[in-house]
């Protein structure tokens, strides 16, 4: 049984006791513990259930590679599923529970799957349940889904905040082990700007646990000294609890800083996501020990040898009292020595190598520990904890020679360099036969914007596994005991039979066994990528940190090919999982996206507005009064505007000034109309097409001066159209003398609309706004009610209308003044919906309603706005293509239901028969449809085949619930057909 040792523990502070709960029971730990070490210290070893077979699982590892012990942490709005116990720093009051079992961890019904393991090999689902989609979806899939998944999903929104930050450096060091610190020291001494990121809360990595000597000091002392030195340098930043999650193209590294995971609720952001642009990343991410694949290697109590050592040295927790070490290399002997030093019993070291006699082996032997060379574990006995191991010859089939009682197995299959970061943006790895590992190929690094390498690897991540090799690589004196070569062992014992292979786990979390990989190979899923996807090897939350190399070695073996020929699967970010909160950063709630506000935004809000999003703006849709539905208020706003006067906040309309000797020529290219001939002081409605011929925007163009025009665009289109203009100016007609500026936000714009509009402006005074002084389709600058304004006589409603532009900082004041002064004329604000209805009553098109990216001006009977005189304009050539010149195109008409009801949005007019694909033929569709409170009936516009030539014809529009509505083709101008109201 695991327990806390009386002394030791380099990372814990015994004077600071912490309490926490696990599955509702209270436990104690110390500051410096991880949840894993505290649980182990409390004697808990059964801590989870596996994904598929629900087998009992305990800790295998001590760090990020832990596949088994994922817990639900916290509760309510701080609940986090799948939290790795080994990387969770213990804090007072932590609440944790185990996952993926029912009803309890100890008694889990799902474990029945374990008995049926032979029925559930890799690929089981592909071969079964294919009778019908119905049966799969309704019967089987729900069971599969319920059984899968790990932790419970949160049900409450997150209480924490997150943030992001940018940083720049010459050298990013990923990993704060001794290799990383050496690299940092070197780069810092060269004057580079250095950033060192260490994912844990501690510096030094493995070396302080593993021992040896650096620069005449023990590693712990060297680390301390080095940190002090680095800490004093201005050009170095040291960051703990910061994981380099990904190394992206051009040296863009994503770092995940767990600022307050260990101090929840202290007001600090929980995580901070760093986006670091690094000239060079020194990957010093260490190596991860590999498990050995023997039967029962997943029973709680079987652990990585290095993890056993870590628990003893770092946290004074011994995972067992009677330990069996099983290995194929010398390093695991350190675990034996360390356990002995801690007063634990080492039952035996089982070494798969035929001969083991390096200094570490000798040291162990000298302390009286039995070393069984050429041996292997055939099987682990025990279900929810190790009871004994059956011993056999490594090169046999597993016939048991001996049974050793024990409560902990420390296994080591060798080490795999952590090559993830090197690989994320294309760096390649190579197989190192001697070390039995993939390590970075320095000849094929990931490259940056200049083709230069953006990553270099140092230390054990580079395959310099031993301290001796690592120091040699860094040019620093130091080293540790000499180690004899490893002998790769992929299956234990080598000729294990089916009964063993079906219980020898490769991927612990996903329950992938040696037999599964062999099955994949047998069935032709021979690419390592196929095997991965067929078996789910390496797809669990540890992303194969423990399983990948073993798995692909087993696959290579099954295929009879060399390991490098099999290759690895692709390493993808993040290195370890990162919270979506961190990826989101500050962008939540109010600042999820920019909200663009007009100067009158606050006023609208204070006056009960119902908003409509338009791009990043919000525009008033309508201003319902108490007791009014939206439709009522829209009707009220329309009637009032058409009978009295309405006020519209039109500030969001785009306003682009275009100036220069060639501005007229330029606008003639941009618009389908002729703009160069517009007289100064006048306004003209214009259309813009893309060079592919489609209508993209419309608006009123004003000629401010001989060489200056002001182009109004749609609200959503302002930035886009400005960009579009600059694009053509900069990239096509760069010799034309034209300047543009986007003045959209310089002005608030207010439309004063309705028969009493003039009276209202006259009341404000200061400018002659009479028909004579300011005729329709002209503009004038001056002072209105003390405000500097420019007034345009343009109308989108068919009413007498003035659009008043005023400097934005005065927009609110003018708006308030107009409302106030307008009271006697029954002035009231109206929103976009009233605007839409009124323009539809007049048959005016709306970009986005009548157009959808497939419509050309000709479809909308806007041929009059397409200049015949111009040789060229954007879209002209495109509109000559056969389909665009096709007389069968659908064209704009008005539509009126026979019974006066409102046609639904988007309905189609059907035609006879069906097309080749058996779809009902159609001959038109509704583009805009409204109830007209003026006409007291439904009105609509639509695009209809040969429409304008078919006035009076009645079309069928199948609507909801089988109802077919009938509507007559009419003139799209419904209201004031003679156009007498605007030009007054």
């Amino acid at each position, binding site marked *: 049984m695991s327990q806390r040792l009386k002394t030791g523990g380099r990372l814990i502070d015994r004077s600071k006791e912490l309490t926490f709960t696990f599955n509702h029971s209270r436990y104690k730990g110390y500051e410096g513990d991880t949840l894993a070490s505290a649980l182990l210290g409390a004697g808990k070893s059964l801590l989870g259930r596996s994904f598929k077979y629900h087998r009992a699982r305990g800790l295998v590892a001590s760090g990020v590679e832990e596949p088994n012990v994922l817990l639900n942490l916290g509760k309510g709005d701080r609940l986090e599923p799948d939290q790795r116990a080994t990387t969770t720093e213990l804090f007072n009051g932590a609440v944790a529970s185990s996952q993926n079992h029912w009803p309890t961890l100890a008694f889990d019904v799902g474990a029945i799957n374990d008995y049926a393991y032979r029925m559930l090999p890799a690929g089981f689902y592909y071969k079964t349940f294919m009778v019908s989609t119905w049966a799969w979806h309704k019967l089987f899939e729900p069971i599969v889904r319920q059984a899968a998944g790990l932790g419970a999903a949160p049900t409450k929104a997150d209480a924490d905040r997150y943030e992001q930050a940018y940083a720049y450096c010459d050298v990013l060091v990923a990993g704060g082990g001794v290799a990383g610190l050496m690299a940092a020291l070197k780069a810092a001494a060269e004057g580079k700007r250095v950033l060192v990121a260490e994912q844990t809360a501690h510096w030094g990595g493995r070396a302080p646990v593993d021992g040896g000597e650096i620069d005449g000091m023990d590693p712990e002392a060297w680390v301390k000294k080095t940190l002090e030195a680095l800490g004093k340098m201005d050009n170095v930043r040291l960051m703990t609890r910061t994981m380099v999650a990904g190394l992206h193209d051009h040296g863009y590294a994503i770092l995940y800083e767990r600022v307050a995971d260990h101090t929840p609720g202290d007001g600090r952001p929980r995580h901070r996501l760093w986006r670091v642009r690094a000239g060079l990343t020194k990957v010093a991410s260490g190596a991860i020990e590999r498990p050995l694949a023997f039967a029962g290697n997943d029973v709680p109590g079987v652990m990585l040898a290095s993890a056993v050592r870590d628990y003893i040295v770092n946290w004074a927790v011994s995972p067992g009292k009677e330990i069996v070490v099983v290995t194929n290399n010398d390093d695991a002997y350190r675990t034996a020595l360390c356990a002995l030093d801690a007063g634990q019993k080492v039952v035996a070291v089982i070494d798969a190598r035929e001969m083991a006699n390096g200094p570490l082996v000798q040291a162990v032997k000298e302390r009286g520990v039995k070393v069984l060379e050429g041996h292997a574990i055939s099987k682990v006995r025990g279900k929810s904890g190790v009871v004994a191991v059956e011993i056999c010859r490594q090169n046999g089939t597993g016939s048991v020679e001996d049974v050793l009682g024990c409560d902990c197995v420390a296994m080591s299959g060798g080490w795999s360099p952590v090559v993830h970061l090197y690989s994320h943006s294309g760096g390649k790895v190579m197989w190192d036969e001697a070390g039995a590992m993939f390590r970075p190929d320095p000849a094929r690094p990931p490259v940056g914007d200049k083709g230069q390498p953006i990553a270099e690897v140092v230390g054990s991540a580079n395959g310099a596994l031993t301290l001796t090799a690592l120091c040699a690589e860094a040019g620093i004196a130091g080293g540790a005991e000499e180690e004899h070569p490893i002998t790769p062992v992929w299956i234990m014992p080598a000729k294990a039979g089916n009964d063993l292979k079906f219980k020898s786990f490769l991927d612990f979390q996903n329950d992938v066994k040696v037999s599964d990989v062999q099955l994949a190979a047998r069935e032709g899923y021979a690419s390592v990528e196929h095997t991965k996807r067929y078996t789910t090897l390496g797809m669990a939350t540890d992303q194969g940190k423990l399983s990948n190399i073993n798995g692909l070695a087993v696959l290579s073996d099954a295929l009879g090919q060399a390991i490098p020929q099999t290759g690895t699967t692709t390493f993808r970010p993040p290195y370890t999982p990162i919270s979506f909160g961190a990826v989101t950063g500050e962008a939540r709630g109010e600042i999820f996206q920019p909200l663009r506000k007009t100067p009158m935004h606050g006023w609208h809000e204070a006056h009960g507005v119902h908003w409509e999003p338009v791009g990043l703006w919000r525009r008033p849709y309508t201003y319902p009064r108490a007791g009014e539905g939206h439709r009522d208020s829209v009707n009220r706003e329309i009637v009032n505007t058409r009978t009295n006067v309405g006020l519209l906040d039109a500030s969001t309309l785009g306003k682009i000034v275009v100036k220069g000797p060639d501005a007229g020529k330029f606008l003639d290219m941009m618009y389908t109309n002729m703009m160069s001939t517009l007289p100064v002081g006048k306004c003209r409605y214009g259309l813009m097409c893309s060079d592919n011929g489609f209508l993209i925007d419309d608006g009123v163009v004003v000629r401010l001066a001989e060489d200056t025009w002001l182009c109004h665009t749609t609200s959503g289109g302002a930035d886009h159209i400005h960009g579009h203009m600059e694009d053509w100016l900069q990239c096509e007609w760069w010799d034309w003398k034209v300047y543009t500026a986007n003045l959209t936000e310089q002005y608030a714009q207010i439309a004063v609309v309705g028969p009493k509009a003039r009276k209202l402006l006259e009341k404000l005074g200061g400018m002659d706004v009479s028909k004579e002084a300011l005729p329709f389709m002209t503009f004038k600058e001056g002072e209105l009610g003390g405000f500097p304004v420019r007034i345009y006589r343009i109308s989108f409603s068919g009413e007498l209308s003035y659009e008043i532009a005023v400097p934005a900082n005065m927009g609110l004041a003018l708006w308030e003044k107009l409302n106030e002064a307008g009271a006697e004329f029954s002035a009231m604000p109206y929103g976009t919906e009233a605007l839409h209805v009124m323009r539809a009553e007049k048959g005016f098109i709306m970009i986005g*309603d009548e157009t959808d990216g497939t419509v050309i001006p000709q479809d909308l009977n806007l041929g009059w706005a397409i200049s015949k005189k111009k040789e060229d304009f954007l879209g002209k050539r495109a509109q000559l293509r056969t389909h665009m010149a096709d007389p069968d195109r659908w064209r704009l008409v008005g539509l009126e239901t026979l019974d006066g009801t409102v046609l639904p949005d988007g309905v189609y007019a059907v035609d006879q028969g069906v097309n080749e694909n058996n779809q009902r033929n159609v001959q038109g569709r509704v583009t805009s449809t409204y109830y007209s409170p003026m006409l007291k009936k439904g009105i609509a516009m639509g695009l209809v085949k040969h429409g304008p030539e078919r006035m009076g014809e009645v079309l069928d529009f199948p609507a909801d619930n089988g109802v077919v509505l009938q509507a007559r083709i009419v003139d799209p101008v419904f209201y004031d057909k003679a156009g007498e109201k605007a030009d007054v």
Partner: protein
Amino acid sequence: MRRYSIFAVAREALRYHSGWEKAWASPEPKKRYDVIIVGAGGHGLATAYYLGKVHGITNVAIIEKGWLGGGNTGRNTTIIRSNYLQDPSAAIYEKARSLYEELSADLNYNVMFSPRGLLMLAQSEHEMRGYKRTVYANNLQGVETRWIERDEVKSLVPILNIDGPRYPVLGALYQERGGTARHDAVAWGYARKCSAMGMDIIQNCEVTGVRTARGKVVGVNTTKGEIDCNKLAMVVAGHSSVLAEMAGFRLPIESAALQAWVSEPIKPTIDVVVMANLVHGYMSQSDKGELVIGGGTDGFNNYTQRGSWHHVEQTTRALVETFPVISRLKMLRQWGGIVDMTGDRSPILSKTPVEGIYVNCGWGTGGFKAIPGSGYAMAELVAKEYSPLAADFSLKRFKEGQFIDESVAAGVAH
């Protein structure tokens, strides 16, 4: 080919599954084939399958530069829907969707087609009008969709933040029989059947050249030597321009990275597929339990299968806003694929300037759902020179201006 079934699994269990045969053979290429298909993605394999099944053409090779299914077919977010607006699109996607309904039985391979329902959220008046229009169009096209109000949306997706704060959900376009399928299984299931029909799937074999004589195709050069053919179908998605270049023509295609990512697995929390197009994010939950997420495409040409990080941020933000409960879940893995974007964002199934060469590409960000329909139509086009499902997707539309533009929302509002 031995049939798969629960009984077969039980029988094999008794002998430790030692008796399974290979799902597909890995032959060396023959000297010539009636039809060579380049690209063993879903579309290439489905084309081959229907060539054999419907048209009796089985002297076919499918040549794949990597591992079959390893292109976009193996890296997409598996959304299946047919709620398209324009007739030609609705026709081919609905054909595909209806074939998906039967696919597991047809292939004797469980592709786990799961019609779990698909929602496209309307979060502005403009989107709402667009989706209502789609519903009317779909009803006439034989595609079952309906408009649902916000209450029904909420009951289908309890974790949805229906009130905004930025863009309250106004309702949704709902396709009840849209859903997902197990992407790899689609490729594997087709491959197994193609192989069983005697077709050669040649993996790890890159086409490096296209040979023509007098304007007609005669064969291809590959890393495994020259192979002759009567007809050549290029079905290589992101690499279409590269293949076209070998044959001497250009396509209206640009290749860009599209990314996806998954969370760690959790117990079932969302049963339907949700697309929130206004904020650019969509999400579903796989049978394994991870949330499968995708968003926007990079704007620049790229062949690296890696995309730019800011899209990941943007889409994750959109989804955390839409589903606030996911904020404490963790991103497990992100990856990219190279999508083939056409000038009008609709696919190309077409003859080409070279006689005997056909292209099937341009599926861009949305071709997984089309695999069976596209394969069906492409097979017909290759076998009979005409397919009603493919007719409108021909290359000539770019000359004539008859685009199939699905972006109803492309026009700006107001």
